[in-house]
Protein backbone atom coordinates (compact mmCIF):
# COMPACT_ATOMS: atom_id res chain seq x y z
CA UNK A 1 0.00 0.00 0.00
CA UNK A 2 1.43 3.32 -0.95
CA UNK A 3 1.79 6.12 1.52
CA UNK A 4 -1.04 8.63 1.09
CA UNK A 5 1.35 11.29 -0.08
CA UNK A 6 3.21 9.16 -2.58
CA UNK A 7 2.43 11.68 -5.31
CA UNK A 8 4.15 14.39 -3.32
CA UNK A 9 7.29 12.32 -3.33
CA UNK A 10 9.27 14.74 -5.42
CA UNK A 11 8.94 17.63 -3.00
CA UNK A 12 9.53 15.41 0.01
CA UNK A 13 12.58 14.01 -1.67
CA UNK A 14 13.87 17.45 -2.50
CA UNK A 15 13.56 18.52 1.08
CA UNK A 16 14.84 15.40 2.75
CA UNK A 17 17.65 14.63 0.38
CA UNK A 18 18.86 18.15 -0.10
CA UNK A 19 22.27 16.99 0.99
CA UNK A 20 23.71 14.37 -1.26
CA UNK A 21 22.99 11.06 0.54
CA UNK A 22 26.49 9.96 -0.47
CA UNK A 23 27.83 12.09 2.35
CA UNK A 24 25.96 10.05 4.93
CA UNK A 25 27.00 6.84 3.25
CA UNK A 26 30.66 7.89 3.15
CA UNK A 27 30.47 8.87 6.79
CA UNK A 28 28.96 5.52 7.82
CA UNK A 29 31.63 3.71 5.79
CA UNK A 30 34.19 5.60 7.77
CA UNK A 31 35.49 7.43 4.74
CA UNK A 32 34.52 10.87 5.95
CA UNK A 33 37.53 13.11 5.81
CA UNK A 34 35.82 15.80 7.92
CA UNK A 35 38.02 18.54 6.49
CA UNK A 36 38.30 19.52 2.89
CA UNK A 37 41.48 18.27 1.29
CA UNK A 38 43.51 19.27 -1.72
CA UNK A 39 40.98 18.07 -4.27
CA UNK A 40 38.24 20.10 -2.66
CA UNK A 41 40.47 23.11 -2.67
CA UNK A 42 40.97 22.80 -6.41
CA UNK A 43 37.24 22.41 -6.95
CA UNK A 44 36.64 25.50 -4.85
CA UNK A 45 39.10 27.53 -6.87
CA UNK A 46 37.27 26.54 -10.01
CA UNK A 47 33.95 27.47 -8.42
CA UNK A 48 35.32 30.86 -7.44
CA UNK A 49 36.64 31.46 -10.92
CA UNK A 50 33.24 30.52 -12.35
CA UNK A 51 31.46 33.05 -10.13
CA UNK A 52 33.94 35.75 -10.98
CA UNK A 53 33.65 35.13 -14.71
CA UNK A 54 29.89 35.37 -14.61
CA UNK A 55 30.07 38.52 -12.52
CA UNK A 56 32.57 40.16 -14.81
CA UNK A 57 30.74 39.28 -18.01
CA UNK A 58 27.38 40.46 -16.68
CA UNK A 59 28.64 43.78 -15.45
CA UNK A 60 30.62 44.32 -18.59
CA UNK A 61 27.84 43.75 -21.08
CA UNK A 62 25.23 45.23 -18.89
CA UNK A 63 24.05 47.82 -21.01
CA UNK A 64 25.57 50.50 -22.01
CA UNK A 65 22.25 50.17 -23.64
CA UNK A 66 20.10 50.36 -20.51
CA UNK A 67 22.17 53.11 -18.97
CA UNK A 68 21.98 55.13 -22.15
CA UNK A 69 18.23 54.58 -22.26
CA UNK A 70 17.90 55.74 -18.70
CA UNK A 71 19.94 58.81 -19.61
CA UNK A 72 17.77 59.55 -22.64
CA UNK A 73 14.59 59.20 -20.64
CA UNK A 74 16.06 61.56 -18.06
CA UNK A 75 16.75 64.13 -20.77
CA UNK A 76 13.26 63.72 -22.17
CA UNK A 77 11.67 64.27 -18.79
CA UNK A 78 13.77 67.40 -18.31
CA UNK A 79 12.84 68.66 -21.75
CA UNK A 80 9.15 68.06 -21.08
CA UNK A 81 9.31 69.87 -17.76
CA UNK A 82 11.12 72.78 -19.40
CA UNK A 83 8.58 72.92 -22.18
CA UNK A 84 5.69 72.99 -19.71
CA UNK A 85 7.40 75.85 -17.91
CA UNK A 86 7.96 77.71 -21.17
CA UNK A 87 4.34 77.30 -22.18
CA UNK A 88 3.17 78.73 -18.87
CA UNK A 89 5.61 81.62 -19.15
CA UNK A 90 4.59 82.32 -22.72
CA UNK A 91 0.89 82.32 -21.88
CA UNK A 92 1.43 84.69 -18.96
CA UNK A 93 3.62 87.01 -21.01
CA UNK A 94 1.15 87.00 -23.88
CA UNK A 95 -1.64 87.99 -21.51
CA UNK A 96 0.48 90.82 -20.07
CA UNK A 97 1.38 92.17 -23.49
CA UNK A 98 -2.24 92.03 -24.58
CA UNK A 99 -3.32 94.01 -21.52
CA UNK A 100 -0.63 96.65 -21.97
CA UNK A 101 -1.48 96.89 -25.64
CA UNK A 102 -5.13 97.43 -24.90
CA UNK A 103 -4.26 100.13 -22.41
CA UNK A 104 -1.84 101.79 -24.80
CA UNK A 105 -4.39 101.77 -27.59
CA UNK A 106 -6.92 103.19 -25.20
CA UNK A 107 -9.58 104.99 -27.11
CA UNK A 108 -8.05 104.45 -30.52
CA UNK A 109 -11.06 103.46 -32.55
CA UNK A 110 -9.26 103.26 -35.87
CA UNK A 111 -8.05 99.74 -35.27
CA UNK A 112 -10.45 96.89 -35.90
CA UNK A 113 -10.93 94.92 -32.71
CA UNK A 114 -9.97 91.28 -32.71
CA UNK A 115 -13.14 89.55 -33.70
CA UNK A 116 -14.39 87.22 -31.03
CA UNK A 117 -15.11 84.68 -33.72
CA UNK A 118 -11.56 84.71 -35.07
CA UNK A 119 -10.13 84.54 -31.57
CA UNK A 120 -12.15 81.47 -30.74
CA UNK A 121 -11.75 79.81 -34.12
CA UNK A 122 -7.99 80.20 -34.17
CA UNK A 123 -7.60 78.82 -30.67
CA UNK A 124 -5.89 81.89 -29.28
CA UNK A 125 -8.20 82.34 -26.32
CA UNK A 126 -9.49 79.89 -23.75
CA UNK A 127 -13.14 79.08 -24.27
CA UNK A 128 -15.97 77.75 -22.21
CA UNK A 129 -19.35 76.31 -22.99
CA UNK A 130 -21.45 73.14 -23.03
CA UNK A 131 -20.48 70.15 -25.08
CA UNK A 132 -19.36 66.54 -24.88
CA UNK A 133 -16.49 64.67 -23.26
CA UNK A 134 -15.26 61.51 -24.96
CA UNK A 135 -12.87 59.28 -23.06
CA UNK A 136 -11.11 56.56 -25.02
CA UNK A 137 -8.54 54.02 -23.96
CA UNK A 138 -6.70 50.90 -25.08
CA UNK A 139 -8.56 47.60 -24.89
CA UNK A 140 -8.32 46.36 -21.33
CA UNK A 141 -7.15 42.82 -21.92
CA UNK A 142 -5.00 43.08 -24.97
CA UNK A 143 -1.36 44.01 -25.19
CA UNK A 144 -1.13 43.66 -28.95
CA UNK A 145 -1.09 46.54 -31.39
CA UNK A 146 -4.69 45.88 -32.34
CA UNK A 147 -5.88 46.82 -28.89
CA UNK A 148 -4.04 50.11 -28.76
CA UNK A 149 -5.36 53.54 -29.59
CA UNK A 150 -3.28 54.88 -32.50
CA UNK A 151 -2.69 58.48 -33.48
CA UNK A 152 -4.85 57.85 -36.54
CA UNK A 153 -7.73 56.80 -34.27
CA UNK A 154 -7.52 60.01 -32.28
CA UNK A 155 -7.25 62.03 -35.48
CA UNK A 156 -10.39 60.34 -36.81
CA UNK A 157 -12.15 61.06 -33.52
CA UNK A 158 -11.31 64.75 -33.67
CA UNK A 159 -12.16 64.84 -37.38
CA UNK A 160 -15.58 63.39 -36.61
CA UNK A 161 -16.21 66.02 -33.94
CA UNK A 162 -15.41 68.84 -36.36
CA UNK A 163 -17.66 67.26 -38.97
CA UNK A 164 -20.44 67.04 -36.39
CA UNK A 165 -20.19 70.77 -35.75
CA UNK A 166 -17.97 71.12 -32.70
CA UNK A 167 -16.76 74.68 -32.15
CA UNK A 168 -13.62 73.95 -30.11
CA UNK A 169 -11.82 70.71 -29.30
CA UNK A 170 -9.07 69.77 -26.85
CA UNK A 171 -7.27 66.46 -26.31
CA UNK A 172 -5.92 65.87 -22.80
CA UNK A 173 -5.98 69.61 -22.25
CA UNK A 174 -4.24 70.49 -25.53
CA UNK A 175 -6.31 72.76 -27.73
CA UNK A 176 -6.57 71.58 -31.34
CA UNK A 177 -5.77 74.36 -33.84
CA UNK A 178 -4.62 74.79 -37.44
CA UNK A 179 -1.11 73.95 -36.38
CA UNK A 180 -1.81 71.04 -34.05
CA UNK A 181 -0.42 67.69 -35.10
CA UNK A 182 -1.56 64.41 -33.54
CA UNK A 183 1.31 62.04 -34.21
CA UNK A 184 2.97 59.00 -32.75
CA UNK A 185 6.44 58.63 -31.29
CA UNK A 186 7.14 54.99 -30.60
CA UNK A 187 4.08 53.71 -28.84
CA UNK A 188 3.10 57.04 -27.29
CA UNK A 189 0.69 59.40 -28.99
CA UNK A 190 1.87 62.99 -29.06
CA UNK A 191 -0.09 66.18 -29.50
CA UNK A 192 1.96 69.29 -30.14
CA UNK A 193 5.07 67.19 -29.48
CA UNK A 194 3.94 66.30 -25.95
CA UNK A 195 3.20 62.68 -25.26
CA UNK A 196 -0.21 61.87 -23.87
CA UNK A 197 -1.08 59.75 -20.89
CA UNK A 198 -3.86 57.26 -21.14
CA UNK A 199 -6.86 57.39 -20.95
CA UNK A 200 -7.33 59.98 -23.66
CA UNK A 201 -9.87 62.67 -22.84
CA UNK A 202 -11.31 64.57 -25.78
CA UNK A 203 -13.46 67.57 -24.94
CA UNK A 204 -15.55 69.38 -27.51
CA UNK A 205 -17.72 72.46 -27.09
CA UNK A 206 -20.90 72.43 -29.12
CA UNK A 207 -24.59 71.59 -28.91
CA UNK A 208 -24.79 68.87 -26.29
CA UNK A 209 -28.16 67.77 -27.63
CA UNK A 210 -27.08 67.26 -31.22
CA UNK A 211 -23.35 66.51 -31.04
CA UNK A 212 -23.61 62.92 -29.79
CA UNK A 213 -25.97 61.84 -32.55
CA UNK A 214 -24.25 63.89 -35.24
CA UNK A 215 -20.89 62.48 -34.22
CA UNK A 216 -22.15 58.91 -34.46
CA UNK A 217 -23.23 59.65 -38.05
CA UNK A 218 -19.75 60.76 -39.13
CA UNK A 219 -16.86 58.63 -40.38
CA UNK A 220 -15.14 59.22 -37.04
CA UNK A 221 -18.18 57.91 -35.23
CA UNK A 222 -18.39 54.75 -37.27
CA UNK A 223 -14.59 54.32 -37.07
CA UNK A 224 -14.82 54.24 -33.31
CA UNK A 225 -17.96 52.12 -33.25
CA UNK A 226 -15.96 49.58 -35.29
CA UNK A 227 -12.93 49.77 -32.97
CA UNK A 228 -15.10 49.44 -29.92
CA UNK A 229 -17.07 46.49 -31.24
CA UNK A 230 -14.25 44.53 -32.87
CA UNK A 231 -11.17 45.34 -30.82
CA UNK A 232 -12.65 46.27 -27.49
CA UNK A 233 -11.19 49.76 -27.36
CA UNK A 234 -12.86 51.75 -24.61
CA UNK A 235 -15.16 54.54 -25.74
CA UNK A 236 -17.35 56.66 -23.51
CA UNK A 237 -19.30 59.77 -24.50
CA UNK A 238 -20.85 62.06 -21.93
CA UNK A 239 -22.45 65.45 -22.35
CA UNK A 240 -21.39 68.31 -20.15
CA UNK A 241 -22.87 71.66 -19.24
CA UNK A 242 -19.66 73.51 -18.73
CA UNK A 243 -16.35 72.70 -20.32
CA UNK A 244 -13.34 74.99 -20.30
CA UNK A 245 -10.71 74.52 -22.95
CA UNK A 246 -7.36 76.32 -22.70
CA UNK A 247 -5.83 78.40 -25.45
CA UNK A 248 -2.99 77.04 -27.57
CA UNK A 249 0.20 78.52 -26.15
CA UNK A 250 2.83 79.57 -28.65
CA UNK A 251 0.24 79.92 -31.39
CA UNK A 252 1.92 81.99 -34.06
CA UNK A 253 3.52 82.14 -37.45
CA UNK A 254 7.12 82.26 -38.52
CA UNK A 255 7.15 82.38 -42.31
CA UNK A 256 3.61 83.14 -43.37
CA UNK A 257 2.54 86.74 -43.77
CA UNK A 258 -0.63 88.41 -44.87
CA UNK A 259 -0.98 88.56 -48.61
CA UNK A 260 -2.01 91.94 -49.99
Amino acid at each position, binding site marked *: MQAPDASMDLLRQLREEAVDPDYARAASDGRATRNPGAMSAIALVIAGALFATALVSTTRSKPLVTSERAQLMGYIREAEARQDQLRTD*QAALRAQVDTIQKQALGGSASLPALSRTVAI*ASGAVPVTGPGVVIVVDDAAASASVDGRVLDQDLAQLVNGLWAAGAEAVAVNGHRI*TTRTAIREAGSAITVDYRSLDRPYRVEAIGDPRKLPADFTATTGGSWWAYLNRNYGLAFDLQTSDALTLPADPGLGLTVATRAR
Partner: protein
Amino acid sequence: MPDEAPRGARRFLTDFLRPSRSQAVMALILFICGLAAVMQVTANSADAGYSTMRRSDLVELLDTLNAQSRRLEADIAELESTKSRLESGVDAQRIAAEEATKRLDELGILAGTLPATGPGIRMTIVDPQQQLTPEILLDAIGELRDAGAEAIELNDQVRVVGTSWVGGSAGALVVDDVALDLPLTIEAIGTPHSLEEGARFRGGLVSQVEGPAVGGSVLINQVDDVIIETLHRVSEPQFARPA
Protein backbone atom coordinates in the same frame (compact mmCIF):
# COMPACT_ATOMS: atom_id res chain seq x y z
CA MET B 1 -16.31 35.47 27.06
CA PRO B 2 -16.87 38.87 28.54
CA ASP B 3 -13.84 38.54 30.78
CA GLU B 4 -11.41 37.94 27.97
CA ALA B 5 -12.54 40.75 25.78
CA PRO B 6 -11.47 43.61 28.04
CA ARG B 7 -8.26 41.73 28.79
CA GLY B 8 -7.54 41.41 25.11
CA ALA B 9 -8.39 45.02 24.48
CA ARG B 10 -6.32 46.17 27.41
CA ARG B 11 -3.40 44.08 26.24
CA PHE B 12 -3.77 45.69 22.86
CA LEU B 13 -3.77 49.10 24.49
CA THR B 14 -0.71 48.45 26.65
CA ASP B 15 1.10 46.94 23.70
CA PHE B 16 0.30 50.07 21.74
CA LEU B 17 1.39 52.47 24.44
CA ARG B 18 4.42 50.58 25.64
CA PRO B 19 5.80 48.53 22.76
CA SER B 20 8.18 45.77 23.61
CA ARG B 21 11.42 45.33 21.71
CA SER B 22 10.16 42.52 19.52
CA GLN B 23 7.26 44.66 18.42
CA ALA B 24 9.61 47.47 17.58
CA VAL B 25 11.63 45.11 15.41
CA MET B 26 8.43 43.83 13.81
CA ALA B 27 7.34 47.38 13.12
CA LEU B 28 10.65 48.20 11.49
CA ILE B 29 10.54 45.15 9.26
CA LEU B 30 6.97 45.83 8.18
CA PHE B 31 7.86 49.44 7.55
CA ILE B 32 10.63 48.41 5.21
CA CYS B 33 8.34 45.93 3.49
CA GLY B 34 5.68 48.54 2.94
CA LEU B 35 8.20 51.04 1.67
CA ALA B 36 9.69 48.55 -0.75
CA ALA B 37 6.26 47.52 -2.01
CA VAL B 38 5.23 51.08 -2.72
CA MET B 39 8.54 51.88 -4.38
CA GLN B 40 8.23 48.85 -6.62
CA VAL B 41 4.68 49.66 -7.62
CA THR B 42 5.45 53.27 -8.44
CA ALA B 43 8.62 52.32 -10.31
CA ASN B 44 6.58 49.88 -12.31
CA SER B 45 4.00 52.39 -13.40
CA ALA B 46 6.31 55.36 -13.89
CA ASP B 47 8.00 54.68 -17.19
CA ALA B 48 5.15 52.83 -18.81
CA GLY B 49 4.82 55.23 -21.70
CA TYR B 50 8.39 55.26 -22.89
CA SER B 51 9.34 51.71 -22.02
CA THR B 52 8.48 50.35 -25.45
CA MET B 53 10.08 53.05 -27.52
CA ARG B 54 13.19 52.26 -29.47
CA ARG B 55 16.29 54.30 -28.96
CA SER B 56 15.87 56.13 -32.28
CA ASP B 57 12.31 57.07 -31.30
CA LEU B 58 13.51 58.42 -27.98
CA VAL B 59 16.17 60.50 -29.72
CA GLU B 60 13.61 61.81 -32.19
CA LEU B 61 11.20 62.72 -29.41
CA LEU B 62 13.97 64.54 -27.60
CA ASP B 63 14.85 66.45 -30.76
CA THR B 64 11.30 67.59 -31.41
CA LEU B 65 10.85 68.58 -27.77
CA ASN B 66 14.01 70.65 -27.92
CA ALA B 67 12.99 72.24 -31.21
CA GLN B 68 9.61 73.14 -29.80
CA SER B 69 11.21 74.56 -26.67
CA ARG B 70 13.53 76.70 -28.78
CA ARG B 71 10.52 78.02 -30.67
CA LEU B 72 8.79 78.89 -27.44
CA GLU B 73 11.94 80.55 -26.13
CA ALA B 74 12.19 82.68 -29.25
CA ASP B 75 8.55 83.60 -28.87
CA ILE B 76 9.06 84.57 -25.25
CA ALA B 77 12.09 86.69 -26.16
CA GLU B 78 10.02 88.52 -28.76
CA LEU B 79 7.17 89.06 -26.34
CA GLU B 80 9.55 90.42 -23.74
CA SER B 81 11.05 92.91 -26.14
CA THR B 82 7.55 94.00 -27.16
CA LYS B 83 6.59 94.32 -23.54
CA SER B 84 9.61 96.45 -22.68
CA ARG B 85 9.06 98.63 -25.70
CA LEU B 86 5.44 99.14 -24.73
CA GLU B 87 6.36 99.86 -21.15
CA SER B 88 9.03 102.33 -22.09
CA GLY B 89 6.21 104.67 -22.95
CA VAL B 90 8.01 106.06 -25.96
CA ASP B 91 5.74 105.86 -28.94
CA ALA B 92 3.79 103.24 -27.02
CA GLN B 93 0.66 103.79 -28.96
CA ARG B 94 2.31 103.31 -32.33
CA ILE B 95 4.08 100.18 -31.19
CA ALA B 96 0.91 98.87 -29.63
CA ALA B 97 -0.96 99.50 -32.85
CA GLU B 98 1.74 97.71 -34.86
CA GLU B 99 1.76 94.73 -32.55
CA ALA B 100 -2.01 94.55 -32.49
CA THR B 101 -2.15 94.62 -36.27
CA LYS B 102 0.49 91.91 -36.48
CA ARG B 103 -1.44 89.79 -34.00
CA LEU B 104 -4.68 90.32 -35.92
CA ASP B 105 -2.96 89.25 -39.13
CA GLU B 106 -1.51 86.14 -37.50
CA LEU B 107 -4.77 85.00 -36.01
CA GLY B 108 -6.62 85.84 -39.19
CA ILE B 109 -4.30 83.67 -41.22
CA LEU B 110 -4.61 80.86 -38.71
CA ALA B 111 -8.38 81.11 -38.67
CA GLY B 112 -8.41 81.22 -42.46
CA THR B 113 -10.09 84.63 -42.70
CA LEU B 114 -7.09 86.33 -44.31
CA PRO B 115 -5.07 85.40 -47.38
CA ALA B 116 -1.48 84.37 -46.72
CA THR B 117 1.80 84.15 -48.55
CA GLY B 118 5.24 82.77 -47.86
CA PRO B 119 7.67 80.01 -48.82
CA GLY B 120 6.34 76.50 -48.97
CA ILE B 121 5.48 73.62 -51.25
CA ARG B 122 2.98 72.79 -53.93
CA MET B 123 1.99 69.12 -54.17
CA THR B 124 0.03 67.63 -57.02
CA ILE B 125 -1.51 64.22 -56.43
CA VAL B 126 -2.66 62.21 -59.42
CA ASP B 127 -5.06 59.42 -58.59
CA PRO B 128 -5.96 57.64 -61.83
CA GLN B 129 -7.78 54.77 -60.15
CA GLN B 130 -9.69 56.99 -57.72
CA GLN B 131 -8.36 55.07 -54.75
CA LEU B 132 -7.28 58.03 -52.63
CA THR B 133 -9.24 57.69 -49.39
CA PRO B 134 -10.25 60.39 -46.92
CA GLU B 135 -8.05 58.63 -44.34
CA ILE B 136 -4.97 59.18 -46.50
CA LEU B 137 -5.85 62.84 -46.96
CA LEU B 138 -6.43 63.28 -43.23
CA ASP B 139 -3.05 61.65 -42.60
CA ALA B 140 -1.43 63.94 -45.17
CA ILE B 141 -2.80 67.07 -43.52
CA GLY B 142 -1.57 65.79 -40.16
CA GLU B 143 1.89 65.19 -41.61
CA LEU B 144 2.04 68.69 -43.04
CA ARG B 145 1.02 70.18 -39.72
CA ASP B 146 3.63 68.07 -37.97
CA ALA B 147 6.21 69.41 -40.41
CA GLY B 148 5.29 72.98 -39.50
CA ALA B 149 2.70 73.97 -42.09
CA GLU B 150 1.19 77.33 -41.17
CA ALA B 151 -1.49 77.54 -43.83
CA ILE B 152 -2.86 74.87 -46.16
CA GLU B 153 -5.04 75.17 -49.22
CA LEU B 154 -6.59 72.45 -51.38
CA ASN B 155 -7.19 72.91 -55.11
CA ASP B 156 -7.63 76.66 -54.64
CA GLN B 157 -11.08 75.57 -53.43
CA VAL B 158 -10.76 74.95 -49.70
CA ARG B 159 -8.76 76.59 -46.94
CA VAL B 160 -7.75 74.01 -44.34
CA VAL B 161 -7.98 75.32 -40.79
CA GLY B 162 -8.15 73.80 -37.33
CA THR B 163 -11.84 73.04 -37.58
CA SER B 164 -11.60 71.51 -41.05
CA TRP B 165 -12.85 67.98 -41.47
CA VAL B 166 -12.24 65.40 -44.15
CA GLY B 167 -15.01 63.14 -45.35
CA GLY B 168 -16.49 61.48 -48.36
CA SER B 169 -15.07 58.34 -49.88
CA ALA B 170 -12.28 57.18 -52.16
CA GLY B 171 -12.40 59.13 -55.36
CA ALA B 172 -15.01 61.52 -53.97
CA LEU B 173 -13.23 63.44 -51.28
CA VAL B 174 -15.06 66.13 -49.34
CA VAL B 175 -13.44 68.71 -47.09
CA ASP B 176 -15.58 71.18 -45.15
CA ASP B 177 -18.60 70.28 -47.31
CA VAL B 178 -16.71 71.05 -50.53
CA ALA B 179 -16.28 68.24 -53.05
CA LEU B 180 -12.66 68.07 -54.24
CA ASP B 181 -11.79 67.62 -57.89
CA LEU B 182 -8.96 65.40 -59.03
CA PRO B 183 -6.05 65.77 -59.54
CA LEU B 184 -5.59 67.18 -56.07
CA THR B 185 -3.32 70.16 -55.52
CA ILE B 186 -2.15 70.90 -52.00
CA GLU B 187 -0.37 74.14 -51.22
CA ALA B 188 1.20 74.69 -47.85
CA ILE B 189 3.17 77.57 -46.37
CA GLY B 190 6.07 76.67 -44.12
CA THR B 191 9.72 75.72 -44.31
CA PRO B 192 9.84 74.14 -47.78
CA HIS B 193 12.34 71.42 -47.15
CA SER B 194 10.75 70.36 -43.83
CA LEU B 195 7.37 70.15 -45.53
CA GLU B 196 8.72 68.07 -48.39
CA GLU B 197 10.53 65.75 -45.98
CA GLY B 198 7.38 65.44 -43.92
CA ALA B 199 5.50 64.20 -46.97
CA ARG B 200 8.24 61.91 -48.18
CA PHE B 201 9.18 60.05 -45.01
CA ARG B 202 8.69 56.30 -44.88
CA GLY B 203 5.03 55.47 -44.50
CA GLY B 204 3.99 59.03 -45.26
CA LEU B 205 1.83 60.54 -47.97
CA VAL B 206 4.09 59.84 -50.91
CA SER B 207 4.65 56.20 -50.06
CA GLN B 208 0.94 55.70 -49.45
CA VAL B 209 -0.17 57.35 -52.70
CA GLU B 210 2.50 55.75 -54.83
CA GLY B 211 2.01 52.37 -53.20
CA PRO B 212 0.03 49.53 -54.77
CA ALA B 213 -3.18 50.34 -52.89
CA VAL B 214 -3.64 53.71 -54.55
CA GLY B 215 -1.32 53.52 -57.52
CA GLY B 216 -1.08 57.25 -57.95
CA SER B 217 1.77 59.70 -58.13
CA VAL B 218 2.85 62.73 -56.16
CA LEU B 219 4.73 65.72 -57.49
CA ILE B 220 6.25 68.12 -54.98
CA ASN B 221 7.69 71.52 -55.80
CA GLN B 222 9.36 73.80 -53.31
CA VAL B 223 8.14 77.30 -53.96
CA ASP B 224 9.39 80.63 -52.66
CA ASP B 225 6.09 82.41 -52.71
CA VAL B 226 3.02 80.33 -52.19
CA ILE B 227 -0.11 82.46 -52.29
CA ILE B 228 -3.14 81.13 -50.45
CA GLU B 229 -6.18 83.19 -51.23
CA THR B 230 -9.13 80.95 -50.50
CA LEU B 231 -10.75 82.01 -47.28
CA HIS B 232 -12.53 79.91 -44.72
CA ARG B 233 -15.99 81.06 -43.83
CA VAL B 234 -16.01 81.16 -40.05
CA SER B 235 -19.43 80.98 -38.53
CA GLU B 236 -20.09 82.65 -35.24
CA PRO B 237 -19.83 80.19 -32.40
CA GLN B 238 -23.17 79.43 -30.79
CA PHE B 239 -21.97 77.62 -27.73
CA ALA B 240 -18.34 78.57 -27.17
CA ARG B 241 -17.47 81.87 -25.58
CA PRO B 242 -14.18 83.25 -24.30
CA ALA B 243 -13.45 81.99 -20.81
